[in-house]
């Protein structure tokens, strides 16, 4: 009798263990998938940031960016063409530009707009949708949303207070420990490059930890929360937009490739909801939220999520109700 119960327990235990092992394997595959796709872009972003630190001076930047906060916001919006980065790379680069004296309103606009308004994303969206309302809607309305949030942030009385104190050492010129090699104007070119890569490497770890924690969260949600429940409710002009916004946040797919992904939903979902997905996803998702938390204070991060969310919702619902494509 005892042995019978024992063998039952062993079987049940074996069964549960198999399920657990299965889930861990699925989680690992999804997590590594997000990680492998994001890391190259994070590396490109940190290298861009290192190069900016070494080759662009505060004076250069001050000359290029207008004093008027509204104009500065617009410049921040189209700066993505000069720095083609996606949402993983844009966070370290924005922090660097802010430390170089870029106005916060322009920095926030750049942070939100660059993952959409850049040549790589333009090309991938064109490849997926061709020349049409989705393409220019994504770029035009994406820029509008980013600039609006930037203008709202420009009213902050003390913009520098939005940045986390522990992120401030980076503002004294370089990453935490890159200041051991002092800045020399006559520094030879190869040393300058070496310093840029050193800064990039430090930043890769600093930002990489948030990227990885974000990828863990996204993979956990994907492994344990059934996607079908979300997609099943996906019709109606308002609900469909909400569903696609949540999906964009949870999936955390890189903005350079999310246009291909959204094709999968283009037929079952309303145009407004697909457009909202393409506008909101690049600006904010789980992994970029974690990266924002490494740079900005919590309250600022909350606004950085809520404002684009509400604006993208507004855009999506408006299109669904008023525009027939």
């Amino acid at each position, binding site marked *: 009798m005892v042995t019978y119960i024992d063998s039952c327990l062993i079987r049940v235990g074996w069964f549960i263990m198999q399920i657990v092992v*299965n889930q*861990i*394997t*699925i989680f*690992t*595959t*999804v*997590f*590594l*998938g*997000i*990680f*492998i*796709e994001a*890391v*190259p*872009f994070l*590396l*490109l972003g*940190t*290298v861009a940031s290192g190069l900016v630190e070494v080759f662009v001076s505060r004076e250069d930047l001050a000359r290029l960016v207008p004093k008027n906060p509204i104009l500065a916001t617009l410049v921040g919006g189209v700066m993505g063409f000069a720095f083609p980065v996606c949402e993983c790379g844009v966070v370290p680069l924005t922090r660097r530009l802010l430390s170089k004296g870029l106005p916060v309103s322009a920095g926030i606009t750049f942070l939100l707009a660059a993952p959409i308004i850049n040549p790589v994303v333009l090309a991938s969206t064109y490849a997926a949708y061709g020349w049409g309302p989705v393409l220019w809607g994504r770029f035009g309305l994406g820029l509008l949303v980013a600039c609006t949030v930037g203008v709202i942030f420009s009213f902050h009385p003390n913009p520098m207070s939005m940045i986390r104190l522990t992120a401030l*050492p980076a503002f004294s010129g370089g990453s*935490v*420990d890159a*200041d*051991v*090699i002092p800045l020399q104007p006559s520094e030879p070119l190869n040393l300058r490059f*070496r*310093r840029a*890569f*050193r800064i*990039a*490497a430090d930043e*890769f*770890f600093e930002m*990489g*930890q948030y990227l*990885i*924690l974000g*990828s*863990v969260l996204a*993979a956990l949600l*994907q*492994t344990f*929360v*059934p*996607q*079908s429940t979300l997609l099943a409710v996906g019709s109606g002009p308002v609900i469909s937009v909400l569903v696609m916004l949540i999906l964009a946040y949870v*999936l*955390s*797919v890189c903005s350079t*490739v999310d246009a*291909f*992904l959204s*094709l*999968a*939903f*283009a*037929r*079952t979902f309303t145009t407004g909801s697909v457009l909202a997905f393409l506008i909101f996803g690049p600006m904010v998702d789980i992994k970029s939220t974690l990266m924002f938390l490494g740079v900005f204070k919590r309250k600022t991060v909350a606004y950085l999520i809520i404002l684009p969310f509400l604006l993208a919702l507004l855009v999506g619902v408006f299109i669904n109700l008023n525009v027939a494509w």
Partner: protein
Amino acid sequence: MTQRTAIRLKALILILMAIFFAEKFASGKLYYYIGPRFAWLAIVAVALLILLAGAYNLIGKRKEDHDHADHDHHHDPSGERASIWPLVVVALPLALGVIVPAQPLGASAVSTRGISTDVAAAGGSETRLTIVPAERNVLDWVRALNATTDPAGLDGQEADVVGFVYRDPRFADDQFMVGRFTLTCCVADALAIGLVVKSDQAAVLNQDAWVRVKGSFLAGELDGQKMPVLIADEITPVQEPEQPYLYP
């Protein structure tokens, strides 16, 4: 942890990560995670990781000299002690990649993601319908299925497809699904699709086993819903394909 140790560990992690990406690329296991059209990203990563690790190596030595020279004025505490947490977190994917055996998504991942006979879930265009029936894979057939509203629309057409076995309580005893995951960017957006197969062998096939199914379509039903069903003439076990996913 001192800065010197941190720098050495960081350089080590960067090199290991470069090896990780290179190994995934060389072994073809990269396709468990991302689509082939983004494989070049892994090469970019390897190049940049080595570049960054190199930057540590060369400047790390200077830093040591500096430490000795300035021994008596530690003005910047953050410059002297480094937190170990960023390193642990960044090393986490490497650790998981080594400990957990690499495996593509299969039938066991269907439970949370769902499996569909609906092409809208897979995306892409109808132009693929021009592919001759003998060459069609699961995705092409699911597209063909969706191009017609008539459950008998594919009657008599012969198919030869490869996929994993998937069963759940909805299926009759002589039914299973031959499934594949479709991928656009990376596994984060993977969606499962499948064809309903009718066969006497259905009950003895193991969940998640890879099979090649030859047969022809006939109007049938799954769980009360009318749809074309593949009547199997021949089911053979096969190796998992080199690229386990299909790409719309």
